[in-house]
């Protein structure tokens, strides 16, 4: 009974409102307010992210002077070029190796930090996160100087151990090694901080229970820590895979793709082709090759995020 009365009341009031539809009523409606509050965000995403993304697809089908539609001509042209396959290969080597080492170092260091007494953790955490805070363009300049062909501080140090001068950025293998090293240096602290947050959320009772059952150090990690951290490890790794795959700064400053284009990634090659050689359609075409990898990673991350959202 009470429900009916309330409903009737609501009908009456809404009818009264509808009669005097003024601007203030429309403004006061929840959905209108919500729409207005999100409008700048929607515009930003639509105009500066979605539109360029689709525009890029269109650009990729034009000829170099952007006067004629060539369909998939740019793509077939790329497939015939050796450099393109080199870029594919290098992008995969770079992203996979770098992410594996970042995750490993992050995991190991997070454990060490977690091991030490709580009060000292803050200091160590602060120190170890520094590479992530410095703008990568700046820190890569420092690495470039450390790798310098004639005054390399690394080679100077290595010479004391009888290890001959290493052509850090001059030879394909070492140049690949160097760009991966710098990327690992830059990205490992991110993993460290994510894993540290995850480690803190593992309840102590689980370790105590495992200790009572006689589990050794290794078994505790394998049967308690890893299963509890699985979600965060997965999401951090996928996220980092996207960022690493799309990396630009480090390779651009360190090697500019050299020697002989062997360290080019999709981003740096797209920059060289599209901006420096001003072949915008071909550049757009190159950068579009990142999309499948990004899409696969995004689908997995999204699945995880929505699952988490439903649990909460």
């Amino acid at each position, binding site marked *: 009974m009470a429900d009916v009365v309330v409903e009737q009341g609501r009908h009456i009031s809404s009818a009264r409102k509808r009669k005097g539809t003024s601007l203030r009523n429309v403004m006061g409606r929840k959905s209108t307010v919500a729409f207005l509050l999100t409008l700048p965000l929607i515009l930003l995403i639509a105009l500066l992210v979605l539109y360029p993304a689709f525009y890029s697809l269109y650009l990729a089908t034009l000829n170099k002077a952007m006067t004629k539609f060539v369909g998939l001509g740019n793509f077939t042209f790329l497939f015939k070029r050796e450099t393109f396959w080199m870029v594919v290969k290098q992008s995969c080597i770079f992203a996979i190796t770098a992410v594996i080492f970042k995750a490993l170092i992050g995991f190991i260091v997070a454990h060490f930090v977690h091991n030490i007494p709580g009060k000292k953790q803050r200091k160590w955490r602060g120190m170890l996160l520094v590479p992530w805070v410095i703008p990568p363009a700046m820190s890569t300049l420092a690495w470039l100087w450390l790798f310098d062909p004639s005054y390399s501080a690394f080679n100077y140090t290595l010479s004391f151990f009888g290890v001959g001068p290493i052509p850090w950025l001059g030879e394909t293998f070492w140049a690949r090694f160097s760009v991966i090293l710098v990327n690992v240096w830059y990205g490992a602290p991110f993993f460290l901080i994510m894993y540290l947050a995850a480690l803190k959320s593992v309840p102590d009772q689980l370790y105590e229970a495992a200790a009572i059952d006689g589990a050794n150090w290794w078994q505790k990690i394998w049967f308690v820590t890893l299963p509890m951290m699985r979600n965060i490890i997965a999401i951090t790794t996928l996220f980092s895979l996207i960022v690493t795959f799309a990396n630009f700064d480090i390779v651009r400053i360190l090697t500019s793709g050299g020697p002989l284009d062997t360290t080019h990634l999709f981003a740096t090659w797209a920059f060289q082709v599209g*901006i420096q050689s001003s072949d915008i359609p071909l550049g757009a075409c190159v950068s579009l090759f990142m999309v499948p990898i990004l899409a696969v990673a995004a689908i997995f*991350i999204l699945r995880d995020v929505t699952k988490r959202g439903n649990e909460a």
Partner: protein
Amino acid sequence: MSTMTIDKAGPTRKLGSMSRDRAWALRWSYFFLVLFAIFFLVPPVYMLITSLKSSAEISAATNPWWVFHPTLSNYVELLTSNQFLRFFWNSSIVAIVVVIITMLISIPAAFALARMKFWGSATLATGVFLTYLIPDSLLFIPLFKTLGVIQDLTGITLLNRWYVLLFVYPTLTVPFCTWIMIGYFASIPKELDEAALIDGASWLQTLTRIFIPVALPGLIAATIFAFTVSWAQFLYPLVFTTSVDQLVLPVGITTTLIKGDVFNWGQIMTGALLGAAPPLIIYAFLMDYYIAGLTAGATKG
């Protein structure tokens, strides 16, 4: 309570060996932490060492890890050169304005998405997260072309002007900031804003009087993040600006201090160190907020 009982009931006879194990684990932890700290801190420390050297000392074949004749000449030279100050000024103004724009867009949007369930709000929240995953290296070519087209159509000069970065950087900062703010706003108890609405507050009043003060830590985290991203961005300014007086710090240092094959390493390292200083200083004071923002963004909304 259950933890307490387990602690007390734990086996006591193995206590000696366990504490010895723990002491060794601690020693090994410190040993490896020192090793990793050295690895992580070598480049910034080397920046500092080189910045204190004269060019003569840099090209001398002495131990590169030590400064024998420290000098501030690199700092003096850079801080009195108009170019470097110009880069620093451009970077500061871009970063500060981008932070303001980002907050103006993402706070209201996050509020609407966290509290006012409306048609399509869930899809939009997911869309924001997906946008955050789209990298700059995918969009720089179409954006460059679009800006060129707008310039041709309207006659407004956009390319090679520092202010074009004000439009472009929010694409990197807004999605992340909105995303972490949705999380912070969602964690505020519903009773708070329901009470405010019943008392007759409008939606905007609820936002400014309740949500912004309560979610201030999240806001600080988002602000730091937006600042760091705009300060560090390298690809967009490299593509969109070319004249020396329009450059921001990262591009300015890498393009103007390196002239041909001549590397003036003392100045380059000083510039890099000064360029890294603002985020480092902010981080030194607000580390906990920064970390909270990082972990909130990538794990949970």
